């Protein structure tokens, strides 16, 4: 639960900081959003009272490897899917009662 609290704090900090990453460089904005996705996904998957339907959706989608990386290299490769064209995406939040 402590890890989850830390992850939640990180997500909120990123959410607060993201607007400030826009003007200097687009790449910084991209990096922030990718990290936020990985953190939010992990939070949903690790939370004991997570929305089971959403959890199944995250685990069942074709690009689920983002959340099952074992090393930084794996994560780096997995995050490349954010840079592929002709994409279909889902927008999600780690907060269950939205």
């Amino acid at each position, binding site marked *: 639960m402590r890890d989850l609290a830390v992850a939640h704090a990180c997500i909120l900090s990123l959410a607060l900081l993201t607007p400030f990453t826009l003007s200097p460089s687009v790449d910084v904005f991209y990096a922030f959003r990718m990290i936020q996705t990985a953190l*939010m996904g992990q939070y949903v998957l690790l939370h004991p009272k997570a929305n089971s339907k959403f959890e199944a959706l995250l685990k069942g989608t074709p690009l689920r490897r983002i959340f099952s990386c074992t090393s930084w290299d794996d994560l780096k490769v997995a995050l490349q899917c954010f840079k592929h064209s002709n994409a*279909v995406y889902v927008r999600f939040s780690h907060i269950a009662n939205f």
Partner: protein
Amino acid sequence: MGSTSSFVLDREHSRYRKFVQVQKNKIVLAEVALRFWCRYDNFWLWSVLPIYTKKSNFWALEQALIQLWQPQLNIPFIYQFFNCRKRLIPRTKFSSSRQFGTFSLWRKLRWKSTPAQVRRALHSPLFGRRVQLWEIIQDLGSNSVRGFHMEKRLRSNEIGLHGCCFIRRLANNLGEPQRSYAINAIDRALKFWKAKRVRKPAPLRAPWLLAEDWTRNLRQLLTAHVHMTKQYNTTLQSPSTGIVFTKYPSVMDSLCNHKDAATRWADGETPLCACSTLRQHSPQPQPADQHLVIDGDTLRFADLPFTSIATGSLQNKIFPPSKEIYKSLRSALTTWTTRNSLPSLRRAHLDDLWKRSIQSHLTSLQNHITHKDIIRFK
């Protein structure tokens, strides 16, 4: 749920720019979800996850996924609880048995899912066919050589008449101008198949009555007719059971017909002044050589309807004779059945409703002004 021909992060950046425009109250064309995030200031608490990449049919995939998962922030599902003008629409309260009884267990069972089930659904032939249908619609709405070839396929036995009807209903979900292109192409194919013309559902434009539960009874009649003639609904277009009541002429329309007066004057007829007639109904003596300028409330008449006309609002409506109302109701129902591509309504059903309603209407219509009263008043 969304799709992009560019990459996900680029789309995310463009959404941010649009979000800023919405925040600044600029008049922009933005999705309803962006307005929802702007209203509750939680755009940054939502993150994007790519589901498919490098797919040429990304738009069709997006539409099929929306159909499959029905995400609440996508159109049309967002309209259930959020309206740009009214903001958050409160949820309809369920009864306690529906909220906590077996119904809730059914809901939980229905929505129970596992990663394996999600994967199976995405690889199922049903999902594949849905994607293919959206691809067909996308091609038809593209106004390109692909649209031309797809239109040829609509005229083949591969898709057929029923397929065309089904695709037409689905094409209503497209945005303009693709929707017009797609619907025109499908209509041409339907003409080729000599099928029934698909029309836009039109509400019933009926006369209004004072009868109790007139609207409810009329809607019941329409709904019953739609259900009884379901087998004739080959176009798969749901007929409209909406009712729009037509306006009756007001006292103003009947009393002060300026057009009629102008025509008479143009024909050389001298307009008659009504002051001499009205002077006798005024309780206070008025100068005989001047026109009357008095309040309608001060006039006194022996007949009650005349007093009502003089003292009431000129915007008061006058009911036409019941024969005329019946005639207009019948013609309205004929127009409604034609416009919604339905068989004619049985006269016995209409007469039954009419007999019940007109009695109630006439009972409530005591001491109301009629057109005859206004003619006499003139």
